[in-house]
């Protein structure tokens, strides 16, 4: 998956972000999407609103986990 597609997916993910629900649940929702689309596995510590709420942090996380895979 090239970088343009990854960025596009992260923009689409960002557009779906729901601010009106439980932040912990939103972190789980994001983790499901990221694991499925990018074929990565997040630790419990990474399924966390503080880690997944910010799109640039998510981009960095995906890059790190893809690099590690």
């Amino acid at each position, binding site marked *: *998956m090239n970088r343009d*597609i990854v960025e596009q997916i992260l923009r689409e993910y960002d557009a*779906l972000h729901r601010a009106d629900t439980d932040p912990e649940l939103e972190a789980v929702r994001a*983790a*499901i999407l990221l694991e499925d689309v990018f074929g990565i596995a997040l630790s419990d510590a990474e399924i966390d609103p503080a880690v997944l709420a910010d799109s640039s942090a998510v981009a960095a996380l995906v890059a790190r986990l893809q690099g590690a895979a």
Partner: protein
Amino acid sequence: MCGVCGIVSHDDPPDLALLRRMMGRLGHRGPDGHGYFRDRRAALGHTRLAIIDTSGGAQPLCNEDGAVWVTFNGEIFNYVELGAKLRHRGHIFRTASDTEVIVHAWEEWGEGCFSRFNGQWAVAVWDRRAERLVLSRDRLGVRPLFFIRRPAGILFASEVKALFADRSVERAFDPAGLEQTFTYWSSVAPRTVFRSIEQLEPGYYAILDRDGFRKAPYWRITFPDRGREPIQDAQENTEALRDRIVEAARLRFVRSDVPVGAYLSGGLDSSVTAAVIARYTDAPLHTFSLRFSDSEFDEGRYQEKMSAVLGTQHQDVTVSRSDVAAVFPEVIWHAESPILRAAPAPLFLLSKLVRDNGYKVVVTGEGADEVLAGYDLFREARVRLFWSRDPGSARRIRAAELLYPWMARSPGRMPAFARSFFGRHLDPDDPAFSHRPRWDSTSAIKGMLSHDQQDAIDRAAAEDVVAMMPPDSKDWDPLSRAQWLEMTTLLAGYILASQGDRMLMANSVEGRFPFLDRDVVDFASALPARHKLFGLEEKYLLKRAFADLLPEDILHRPKQPYRAPDAASFFTPERPAWFEAVMAERAIAAAGVFEPSLVTGLMAKCERIGGENMSNTDNMRVLAAVSTQLMHEYFIVGGGYGALEWPLPDPSIAVDLVKDDRSVP
């Protein structure tokens, strides 16, 4: 849309009286006329619902020299384009019908013609030159085609009841067909629930000639390997999907010589098809909806909203529990299968509304959930896969709350429920990972089977649908594997049959399904899985593609599966008399499928609680028992429902070469 039937005989000429009885049993599929052809080897019958070339398209129909005859149920939506190609190659047409395109396409391309068709069909071609019968069925099984093979030849028909017009046909349940039905919700082609009767697989053609009987696929459900989908860009795919759906809906609306209406459920899919028709065609649109007196199932608010937005002439029918019970026997007579939900019954009443309003064709949103991943089952599978990576994780188990918001409101109940429902069958390498919980839950019905029936099932060893999966499916996305299973089992065997063709044709109404268009299906199958189910956002690309045509609250409303009152329908004070007769202990013993004491115990339990708040399992058990008992009464004992055969007026086509010319070979 029509009824087809026929006989090929290796010895005596086919029995015309039998063919007439078969056509009589298909009268509801074709009330506008009938016709037949017979020579010394074959007889083809047809009952017609006239939709294209209403004055000239009577069947059976032949080629220029009478060597090739066809009887056809369905529509070939690209018949105009194929007809132009065939004319260019020298074929001479006498009608403007899609039926004649089939005859010339067979002459021109042989078995290769079927992959060129974009439509919904069950067709029989009799090629007199080669004494060859060819049967074919559309890609996904929109139209039914059953047959019986025997040493003396073959009998085929659109519905099983027409085959039973031959009194020599064995009347018995097929244990393996029942086993599949009580696992997958329907038998899986070529099996049926009847021992002597087969159905042609969707996407197949079959040939019977001097070399015997054989069949082969001309198309298969397939998906690219994960990560190797041809187009990865979401915007490009959005636009291409929209183009294909618009063209598919437009074709299904304009390629008819009678007015076409549309179903409007209040959900996304039928709203898309109705909106596309309203936007891209000129004709006024008439829409039809189903409402329920039980508010739990009613979507009237959304239907009215969508109708108002589109400016359609709108009509609805409100269905109560007692309505479901009242029509249930007729529903089973048409469905020709045990059913595990009462959902077909309201659809029977909806097609009656359509017919009563003078329409005989409707466009619906069927197929979108399978092709573009709308079902909760797909989301559940993704959540279970997520959970399976670390079943002990306190964070991952919360994913179940994203599927069912009530869990978040009842945190005390959540972990136990989540573990019991989602926490089983968590092997990610299982090709049927997505479907195990459903199959497991459905199989609870088998706990009610009689010992004899269970023994018969054990001996019959029904095919495992997982073993039918293509070898390369191991490289598909897990969503694609789930879609394959759903399209192979529930779509063909239940959604398009018991809920689709049978409930529509019971009232002589043809359904047309843009989401099952050849080009839509092929395109959607090649999409990256994330463009269908993006995280847990179902039908992601479809929503993007039609965001400008739909109101926000239709576009983003949570998916509401189509449901109707189930077992509760049979435990109201207005319960019809038929129920006591077919569910009596002696009737259950006579049918021999279920253990009488277990069924009567279940009925007593439902009676006590008035059918309210029943578990999903008990709901299915009641529906399975009631529908199977009715099946036994109508098809195995053989009483049928009402008048077995429609009176047939004078035929529009009557070609009998046996009677007319004794020298014809």
